């Protein structure tokens, strides 16, 4: 191995907050050699992103390096002036940021934002810069790059935007590329192609990659060397294989065991006998009017088509699919938040397709939702107690004293301290908030809970806890779940029956074991193949 390209030694970073300084990174060290890929793995709040931001000297205004050194190509980056850093950023250290939706300026064309890298570093100007940017777009696999150059970010899909960001990061063939969760916002199949592309480009350019991710399996699959961080400290590092197969730190072991993978065994037992269906969905279809073309003609867009399935009482039925597959539309129709264009929805054997008024009000008590984003799903001005009590108030259940008692009981049911009832959502962690959302859904003793990506925004350890909670609630209360997710591994762990959706249709159905061990449909096979399993693909 050659000399180190990037050497971070005992780096500490602190953020100034209202409650004094908070140390986000504490004495972390890592080394990246030329051409090597090093992955930094950790949960949210582990300091992994802060560490890489410090390398680039792009910490948030309230953050500062309190100790240690960052040596890049023999030069101490922390001692450089801001002006000198401008010459390093983009040219010698590239960045591929996390969220492709927010990292491009929405008011400027995609091409001009790539060309800017050339003009800023005076590598090319005007037409020359445009030509180079167009070539880059082609290289990252965007067809019709010449036309695409002038388009705006909102005209690109998430995967394509991420390619644009990769093109930006690699424009000047930097020696080091910092890729901060480059694919966590993307569908699994898109993630695979984007990562393949990134790997191929960095290999040909000889660029070293510092890959930040929460996904241990992905890190192990893509990196030569893995660094595991927790609460600002490096708890373990080593070659990818060693870390994954024989971890030394307890925390790494915990992470590995909590991470859902296709090898994880199911958490649920099959129901006894054949329970009668509580929800029956037949030929459900949803069209949305969309205006297209210069004249704004209305053409219907079919979000869901001919969707048929049942939810047997006391079981969990999963729907997996990528974004745009129509799975959330189905969830909304089952919740009766959207009216189907065609098809039938029956609850306990009675049609509820066209109900309204009192009947709908009664239906809402029996079927409750839990949504994806625990941050957005709770009103920030409601206390936890208010949020959980609201359904009881709306449906006028019991006396005020009884409602208060019920709130305490519900919070205990989701393993939260009833004392939390007086707190506000921003005082809680993501996992706690999702427990509150579940408690709120359970307030009216529903029969069915629709979980739309309910664990997707959570860290693996928290996710594992919530999944356990859901399983135990099902056993205790006899709940039926409709579990919507993009994550096949999670679905495999928790569902009795799984339906795979794509383009608004159910492609394939079956028990998790059948579906994942013997996928029939090519799409299901592709989905399964795209999941990182923690081993580098054979070259």
């Amino acid at each position, binding site marked *: 191995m050659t000399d180190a390209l990037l050497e971070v030694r005992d780096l500490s970073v602190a953020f100034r907050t209202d409650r004094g300084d908070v140390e986000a990174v504490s004495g972390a060290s890592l080394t990246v050699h030329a051409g090597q890929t090093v992955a930094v793995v950790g949960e949210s709040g582990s300091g992994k992103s802060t560490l890489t931001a410090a390398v680039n000297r*792009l910490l948030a205004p309230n953050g500062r390096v309190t100790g240690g050194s960052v040596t890049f190509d023999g030069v101490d980056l922390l001692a450089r002036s801001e002006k000198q850093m401008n010459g390093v950023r983009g040219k010698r250290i*590239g960045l591929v940021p996390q969220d492709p939706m927010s*990292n491009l300026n*929405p*008011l400027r064309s995609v091409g001009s934002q790539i060309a800017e890298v050339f003009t800023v570093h005076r590598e090319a100007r005007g037409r020359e810069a445009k030509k180079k940017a167009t070539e880059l777009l082609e290289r990252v696999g965007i067809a019709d790059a010449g036309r695409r150059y002038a388009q705006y970010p*909102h005209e690109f899909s998430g995967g394509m935007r991420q390619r644009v960001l990769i093109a930006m990061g690699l424009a000047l063939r930097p020696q080091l590329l910092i890729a901060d969760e480059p694919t966590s916002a993307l569908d699994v199949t898109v993630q695979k192609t984007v990562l393949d592309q990134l790997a191929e480009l960095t290999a040909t350019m000889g660029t070293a990659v510092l890959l930040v991710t929460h996904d241990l399996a992905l890190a192990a699959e893509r990196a030569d060397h893995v660094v595991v961080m927790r609460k600002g400290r490096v708890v373990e590092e080593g070659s990818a294989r060693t870390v994954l197969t024989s971890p030394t730190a307890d925390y790494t072991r915990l992470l590995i065991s909590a991470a859902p993978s296709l090898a994880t065994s199911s958490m649920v037992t099959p129901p006894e006998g054949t329970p009668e269906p509580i929800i029956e969905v037949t030929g459900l279809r949803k069209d949305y009017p969309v205006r297209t073309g210069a004249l*704004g003609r209305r053409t219907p867009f079919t979000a869901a088509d001919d969707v048929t399935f049942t939810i047997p009482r006391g079981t969990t039925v999963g729907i997996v699919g990528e974004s745009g597959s129509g799975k959330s539309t189905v969830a909304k129709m089952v919740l009766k938040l959207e009216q189907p264009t065609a098809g039938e929805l029956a609850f306990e054997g009675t049609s509820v397709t066209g109900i309204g008024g009192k009947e709908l009000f009664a239906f809402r008590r029996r079927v409750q939702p839990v949504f994806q984003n625990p941050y957005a799903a709770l009103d920030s001005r409601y206390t936890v107690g208010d949020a959980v009590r609201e359904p009881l108030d709306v449906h006028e259940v019991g006396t005020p004293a009884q409602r208060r008692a019920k709130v305490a009981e519900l919070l205990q049911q989701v393993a939260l301290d009833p004392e939390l009832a007086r707190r506000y959502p921003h005082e809680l962690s993501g996992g706690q908030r999702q427990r509150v959302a579940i408690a709120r859904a359970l307030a009216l003793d529903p029969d069915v809970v629709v979980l739309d990506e309910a664990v997707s925004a959570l860290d693996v350890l928290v996710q594992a806890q919530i999944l356990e909670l859901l399983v135990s609630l099902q056993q205790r209360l006899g709940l039926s779940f409709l579990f919507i997710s993009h994550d096949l591994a999670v679905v495999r762990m928790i569902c009795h029956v799984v339906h795979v959706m794509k383009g608004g249709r159910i492609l394939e159905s079956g028990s998790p074991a059948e579906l994942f061990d013997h996928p029939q449909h090519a799409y299901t096979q592709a989905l399964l193949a795209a999941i990182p399993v923690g081993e580098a693909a054979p070259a």
Partner: protein
Amino acid sequence: MLRFTLRRLALIPLLLWGIVTIAFFLSRSVSSNPLVTIVGERNLGNPDVVAAATRRWGLDKSLPEQYWVYLSNLVHGDLGTSFRTKSPVLDDLGARLPATLELAFTALVIAVVLGTLGGVVAARNKGRAADGVLRVAALAGSSLPVFWVGLIFLFVFYATLGIAPSPGRLSARVIPPPDVTGFYTVDSLLAGDWPLFTDAFAHLLMPAFIMSLALLGTVIRLVRSQMLEEQGADYVRTARAKGMARGQVLNRHVLKNAITPVVTLIGVSVGLLIMGAVLIETIFSWNGIGTYAVESSRGLDFPAITGVCLVGGVLFLLGNLLTDIAYATIDPRVRLS
């Protein structure tokens, strides 16, 4: 975009009909008699004159009849004749509108230019003295009543210090430029009369500045908060990671994104400016729509009142339409439909 514009333009007559109807009936619901304006106080005692005037001006007809006559005249481009000036309302408005537009347009330019500048300076110096001063000034600008500020300014700069010109569009005994656009500043330049231009411009500056105050304060605050918000956006950090200096990012990325909402604000404020014209023009003896409105309503000059409402409506609707088009031009995500 063209389709959108045409559709919106097609809607304008309908909206104007609504405005005219409300203005017509509202002004006539006042239980006082416009005849005094028509015939003058001295003739009010003369029943023959009053009867003749009542007939002549159609006031003997029932209200629905009067309304119908007004509407059918309006369709032919006739806004009626002013009770007070005895000349067609359309001519009156035509003569006075440019004065108001010149004032309002200048006020708009001042508000946008100074407001953006102030907002950027405040945002760049967040938490420092300059920011504090600008924030207080902005708050004062949007909350102090214009008529009070107008009088104070006149007292200080004209009456006491003598550095500002007298109220009015031009100095006394100065002859207006030949009428081309009706904007004295533009017309004087067209005529190549530089001294006349400086005179017109000097007279324009103070009322326009005071007219802009409310909007100016709002623009400063909006630009400041937008700048601060945009600076924290992910794409700004990404631009910095390309190697761009802070100032470069500010100029090339942040500024445009931050001032986009100002466009919307302007559209909404067109109505505000026209309303403000009533007060400003009265204080500064500005012979525009505002003074015309005040004089007409004092004498219950029905055709003139309705005419002013109509012009205000047209300006407001056009302002909003232009805003929508401008917004769609700046922000590619906005699709007009």
